[in-house]
């Protein structure tokens, strides 16, 4: 029995009122708000967050592979899933792959993971899907698009939703695209794209799968598939297939609060459906883009098991309204800005980052075997892996100790107006971890006015530096979401 063992989601904390876009540029405002990845987030960090959410309570060492799906990879050449395996604490002998360039990359990754398990090559595969697409300023896409991520853990035992069947189609249509020199999403006339693409393709793939599986719309509790820019087309497809409105996983909740999250949209809607699913439910699930993938899911009793995950619900509720549209432009580096009058940061040393990848990407410190003190060093001037205990001075007598999933409290802080950061002031905290250990971190996703000594924080994986095309990832603290 192969199916979904766990799921997770991530939505950035910051939300932009779409009316603010219209205020800046004029024109029409789509109602609602969209999620905006903070300046230190990208599809990699959002996927890691969703992955951590999905793996809460699971042993990450039991995962045999990681597929990362996105259309907004920070790299054209260099794998992101290999980077992400370290913060997620996956084993080294796993299969990793990045699946890019199509809006159905998420469902494609799911299909590939499913086949990998079915083929006996793996018992457990983690699929992470995230997108941070951009519409050009002043366009409708800028309002429609939002940022977010989903995670699905596939395996062959204790599944909460068995995957009974799948079906895929390929379709050549340049409906939306981005060449390797485009920063923003481009699209052909939407009527043609919707008429000849979306509105034909999704009925075709879903009816194809139902025919193959011997099922009809009445057999399903839910049908889950991604909407196009015009969400009315979504309802039309469902009706055309014969689904009643009550069976349809409504995309509006996501669209109104987060936006269209690219290849993460369908998986995020699936997460929303699973959050409401009951044992015995059948779910028809599809994702589209240059073709489509569809799946039949059968929910099991295991779905009732309580989980530590925050999920889509938890992330939707935890948010901060952005005060203006300018911040969006600044965080995305869409307008030239006066640089802070500070010295430039030094170039990234890739050899040092490689040497300390476990400490930096994994947030692994040590616990002294002699005095029992947990210790973490954040890659400052001279340190790196701790070799001498800071308390009892024992050398090399340590157990590895992970700080990434530890809660912490603020021991001291400052709001630094002199430091050169994208969104001043630089909120910096010295934190103390539950169970011991202390370290300095940048504080992200924060309201500077609300930072205080004793404030509970948790660790979040972020992009801290960009230099010569290299994204440098590390951890920051954030107020507990």
């Amino acid at each position, binding site marked *: 029995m192969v199916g979904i063992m766990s799921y997770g989601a991530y939505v950035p904390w910051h939300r932009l009122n779409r009316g603010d876009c219209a205020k800046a540029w004029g024109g029409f405002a789509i109602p609602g708000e969209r999620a905006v990845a903070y300046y230190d987030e990208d599809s990699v960090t959002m996927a890691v967050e969703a992955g951590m959410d999905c793996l809460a309570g699971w042993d990450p060492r039991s995962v045999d592979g990681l597929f990362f799906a996105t259309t907004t990879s920070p790299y054209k050449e260099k794998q992101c899933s290999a980077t992400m395996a370290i913060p997620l604490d996956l084993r080294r002998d796993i299969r990793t792959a990045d699946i890019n360039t199509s809006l159905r990359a998420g469902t494609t990754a799911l299909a590939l993971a499913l086949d990998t398990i079915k083929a006996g090559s793996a018992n457990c595969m983690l699929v992470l899907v995230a997108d941070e697409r951009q519409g050009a300023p002043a366009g409708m896409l800028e309002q429609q698009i939002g940022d977010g991520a989903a995670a699905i853990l596939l395996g062959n035992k204790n599944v909460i939703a068995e995957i009974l069947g799948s079906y895929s189609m390929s379709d050549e249509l340049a409906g939306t695209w981005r060449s390797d020199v485009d920063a923003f999403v481009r699209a052909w006339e939407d009527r043609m794209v919707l008429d000849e693409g979306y509105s034909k393709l999704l009925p075709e793939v879903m009816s194809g799968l139902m025919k193959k599986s011997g099922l009809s719309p009445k057999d399903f509790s839910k049908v889950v598939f991604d909407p196009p820019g015009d969400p009315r087309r979504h309802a039309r497809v469902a009706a055309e297939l014969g689904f009643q409105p009550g069976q349809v996983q409504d995309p509006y909740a996501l669209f109104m609060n987060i936006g269209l999250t690219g290849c993460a949209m369908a998986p995020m809607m699936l997460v929303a459906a699973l959050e409401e699913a009951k044992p015995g439910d059948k779910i028809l699930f599809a994702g589209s883009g240059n073709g489509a993938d569809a799946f039949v899911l059968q929910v099991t009793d295991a779905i009732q098991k309580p989980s530590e995950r925050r999920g889509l619900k938890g992330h939707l509720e935890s948010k901060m309204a952005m005060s203006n549209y300018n911040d969006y432009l600044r965080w995305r580096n869409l307008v030239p800005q006066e640089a802070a009058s500070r010295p430039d940061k030094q170039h990234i*040393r890739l050899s040092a980052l490689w040497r300390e990848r476990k400490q930096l990407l994994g947030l692994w410190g040590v616990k002294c075997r002699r005095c029992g003190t947990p210790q973490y060093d954040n890659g400052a001037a001279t340190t790196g892996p701790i070799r001498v205990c800071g308390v009892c001075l024992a050398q090399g007598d340590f157990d590895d100790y992970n700080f990434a999933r530890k809660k912490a409290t603020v021991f001291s802080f400052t709001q630094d107006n*002199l430091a050169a*950061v994208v969104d001043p002031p*630089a909120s910096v905290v010295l934190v103390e971890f539950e169970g011991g250990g202390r370290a*300095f971190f940048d504080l992200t996703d924060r309201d500077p006015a609300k930072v205080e000594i004793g404030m509970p924080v948790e660790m979040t994986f972020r992009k801290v*530096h960009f230099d010569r095309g290299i994204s440098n990832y*590390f951890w920051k603290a954030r107020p507990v979401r």
Partner: protein
Amino acid sequence: MPGSIKDRVAIVGMGCTQFGELWGKGPNDLILDAVNEALADAGIEIKDVQAVWSGTLFSGSGGRTVSEALRLQYVPVSRLENACASGHEAVRGAAYAIAAGIYDICLAVGYEKLKDEGASGLPGMENRTNTHYQSSMPGVFAMMATRYFNRYGLSPEEGKAMLAKISVKSHHNGAMNPKAHLRREITLEQVLNAPIIAWPLGLFDCCGVSDGGAAAILVRADMVKSFPNTPMYIKALQICASPTTGRLVTTYDYTHVEEAYRAGIAAYKEASITNPRKEISMAEVHDCFSITEAVTMEDLQFSPRGGVKEDVNAGTFELTGPLPVQPDGGLKCFGHPIGASGIRMLYEPYLQFRGKAGKRQMKNPKLALAHNMGNEPYAPVVSVCIVGL
């Protein structure tokens, strides 16, 4: 203690440049101007100097920068770098070489051309992985203030008022010092209403970014009679380097600097001082930020732990108080050309002992303490130098 420097080395000449935004001067000017004044003061020529120790963090390369500026004729020159304690480190190198009997006359020179960095603050420090938190130096020290206020139950207003008085006091003194960078008195209101640099530290809680140079001629103590001026003897020179565990372990309170406390203890022992608050006549401490001066008063045992506020309010550290601190204006008014600061701190007692401190002149100072601190409060290198007649 294996050995002691006490009374074995004397300073017989000193020089100090004007500190400030010296757009028209380069590192060579700072070196030459400071050294020329020191040589003239000691009544010697550069050819009499047998060995040189220089301190700079950013503005030099090895010993060559000084050798080149002075056109030294094939004498040994060492460059020492110990972050903001580099100036004292240069003095230490020269003093120890003399005490070891290797040389009779040495030069210690510290300088920094900070204003060539084109930035409002210190240049970037070494950071191999760029995963360091994004805090400036004011921010790092601000976190000590945040914690200090919390630990001793000071409201932000009370805490900031205590720190403001420290800055007002230093500016009062600095206004009387022609070589200081900032020579204007400030009011409590100005300090409290100034823009925040890093909460809770505002503009006047931070020292300036300045250029400067300072130099000292050191000789064997038994040679002082050959020199024209009153000699100033080194009574103690102690450096304490941090194991940098303050940022790793939860036992560090972030309201004191352990290394300053320990360097102070070692220096008092070397100088045979048992009651520093009574015996020390004046102190020049590393007031890179107002909070640094506050906790340093406690670390050096001038004030009890948590009790500096009472001393600040009582005027203990004012020029007319029982223990003047920063009689020359301190880093607050001189700015902090890193390598120069440690030697600049010795220049003031040198003037005071000789009765040449002008409007700032104290009555009969006997012992002075200079305290230099490099790096962050949780991981510093601290030097304490005690000098006297």
